[in-house]
């Protein structure tokens, strides 16, 4: 069984699977990150993704354009973010409660609308769908190794990777991003300089909606071409874990998503090994166990750097 696995690692199948499995987590985690840096932890990623997945495929199939579909998915997801922001920032609902409510809402409303609009229950797969295109790079695709590595991935995979760069630049190279980070860390300080804290938190949630929307759209129009109720199946929570695992910065999130994606890819490959003596459940817990291990290793390293003392008791 191991030789088989090695073969797939060697021929880069694992990389292809990894990139695909990683992308929705990466995008959703970036969305989670941007609101998290402003001190608003978005637990509603799961529900938002579902809504985006549904609305993008609904619009995409109606208009026949993946682009319009994705765009609408993102816009609707942003709108949902505003609803969330309204409840949390304006009405003072606990952010965790808001998040869970959005999750439940997302699950319910998609099924409800699917029923009302398409008169189907449970899943919707349009006959003709313009999927998010895959990018085949001429010439490179013919080079044996490089071709498989670089060519033939969905556009969204590249968007996901570019989003990391985008988020990095936004958070560290624009005043706006510095403001976002500042209000998460020292809201009083930002406020005392006239930075509109709440308005920025609204906008950060909107950004959250953008990336989560892309993640959702990828699930229904890239990874598959259908909407299945609750198809996110916990991806939003995994993304939340990645936000925290990635130490709240875009590069860390990329690393976290890679670790997670790798574990998922390994799970997929291990599961398809014929007559494997390992029970399927042991393989299924792999991504979760790997995440815990990664976190613990990271925590131990960080812990080792600190000396034993009460935290710095400086006034803020």
């Amino acid at each position, binding site marked *: 069984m191991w030789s088989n696995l090695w073969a797939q690692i060697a021929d880069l199948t694992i990389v292809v699977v990894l990139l695909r499995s990683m992308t929705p987590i990466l995008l959703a985690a970036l969305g989670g990150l941007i609101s998290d840096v402003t001190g608003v932890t978005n637990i509603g990623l799961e529900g938002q993704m579902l809504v985006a997945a549904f609305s993008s495929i609904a619009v995409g199939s109606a208009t026949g354009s993946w682009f319009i579909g994705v765009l609408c998915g993102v816009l609707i997801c942003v709108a949902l973010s505003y609803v969330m922001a309204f409840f949390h920032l304006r009405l003072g609902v606990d952010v965790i409660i808001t998040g869970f409510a959005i999750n439940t809402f997302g699950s319910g409303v998609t099924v409800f609308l699917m029923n009302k609009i398409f008169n189907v229950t449970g899943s919707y797969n349009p006959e003709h769908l313009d999927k998010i295109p895959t990018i085949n790079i001429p010439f490179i695709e013919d080079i044996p190794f490089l071709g498989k590595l670089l060519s033939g991935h969905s556009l969204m995979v590249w968007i996901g990777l570019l989003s990391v760069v985008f988020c990095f630049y936004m958070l560290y190279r624009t*005043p706006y991003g510095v403001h976002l980070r500042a209000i998460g860390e020292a809201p009083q300080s930002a406020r005392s*300089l*006239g930075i509109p804290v709440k308005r920025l938190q609204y906008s950060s949630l909107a950004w959250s909606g953008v990336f989560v929307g892309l993640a959702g759209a990828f699930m229904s129009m890239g990874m598959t071409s259908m909407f299945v109720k609750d198809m996110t199946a916990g991806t939003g929570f995994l993304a939340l874990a990645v936000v925290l695992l990635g130490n709240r910065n875009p590069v860390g999130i990329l690393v976290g998503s890679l670790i997670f994606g790798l574990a998922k890819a390994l799970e997929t490959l291990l599961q398809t090994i014929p007559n494997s003596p390992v029970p399927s459940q042991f393989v299924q817990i792999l991504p979760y166990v790997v995440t815990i291990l990664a976190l613990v290793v990271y925590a131990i390293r960080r812990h080792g750097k600190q*000396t034993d003392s009460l935290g710095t008791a400086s006034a803020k």
Partner: protein
Amino acid sequence: MTVLLEMRDIHKTYPNGTIANRGVNLEVREGEIHALVGENGAGKSTLMKILFGLEAPTQGEIYYKGEPVQFHGPRDAIQHGLGMVHQHFMLAPSLTVSENIVLGDEPRKGPLHMFRDRNKELEDINQLIKDFGLKLDPKAVVESISVGQKQRVEILKVLFRGAKLIILDEPTAVLTPQETDELFDSLKTLVEQKYTIIFITHKLREVMEISDRITVLKAGKTIQTLETKDTSQEEISRLMVGRDVLFRVEKQEQVLRDMVLELNHVNAVDDKGVAMLKDVSLKVHGGEIFGIAGVEGNGQRELVEVITGMRKATGGEILYFNENIIGKSIGEIRNLKIGHIPEDRQTTGACLTSTIEENLILDVYDHPEFRFGPFMKHKRLKEFAQVLMKTFDVRADSGETLAGSLSGGNLQKVVIARELAKNPKLLIASQPTRGVDIGAIEFIHREIIKKRDQGAAVLLVSAELSEIMSLSDRIGVLYNGELVAVLDNTPDLTEQEIGYYMLGIKKAKQEAASQ
């Protein structure tokens, strides 16, 4: 001089019902340094927050340059040329010095002015640093710089925005005397350049030294505005506290008892793992106050933490009644009748979101007389807290008031009450009067002396040299993690002399240091 600012009949009620201002009037003239004084909780910070647009007044008017104004937020105030240095640092710890300074007004470049112009940012800040002669590394991350440097960042924030009226809310509370002097020099330069300054402090000496006029607040109301040259510390303090305040500390003749604390060649590292305490040896006897002087950041914090078990010593021994206490847990050390007034009452010394009672019972809640199996004897504990509040004059509605709603001085009294209630044989007091009003300072000093007179050993750490000199029997000076001198506090010992040691200019022989 023309009147720059006038605040008339300002009222403020906080959302939780606290009435902080109840009819304050303030008039500030152009180009003056106007001191605002008053007890803890008198409403000084609140008034300034209102001026700066951070809090909306419940009632009242503000005139700026003769015009009625309403600042709907700090942005408004900043645009009108106001700047404020807050009582507590308003800095984002993980951002750099320069990022903090320009926050909200970043130089921009690129399409749509989308990106930060980091070169210009650095240029501007370096220029500012040069202009005002403040030493700072703009690229340093704020969480890694010293308290004094943080204060400079705050001032630069204001100057960067071109403020003409600068509000400084207790800027010197955390500064060393040297840093204070530097700050005052800068302030004088600013005033010469036609800046106007509102200055809040509890240190009347500073008020007398630097201000032109003084406004005294009490219980949310203006008591009086005075010309500095026509008044005295005594008069101001009488206005503030409503009675005469004793500035001199009355001490009995010293009766030296057994040795309580002995440190032999103690070493320790700071949070970053750098050696911070180097081979420190000292002895404190019962009935003695041993003062530790030194510029902040020279190992005082580490010294206190090592003795109280909050930090591991990397070498040496700490004897308490001849028993080595290194390796004991914080709890075990506390149970040895060692009292500890920590330098930071907001996070270490008190739990602001707990009630006063819960803060007071920290040491006794698991003593046999207050417990019943796993349960606490609530009634007894309540009585205990009640008694403490009374003896230590903690002014609050009830013991169930949240500690966080107490003013600085009252909160400190809670800490002191708790630490003294256990009749410590050794009291470690770190910056016991920082940010506390003069009435409370007087009280705290008296309590510390009382302990000494009752035979306890006291290790007093303070950045306030005058405090050290007026309370201590002997004075040790920490410089760069070493105890460079141990001096008897005789009448002919001068601040200057100690200052030399503090700055490392002079160093006593090692034998003298370890006696």
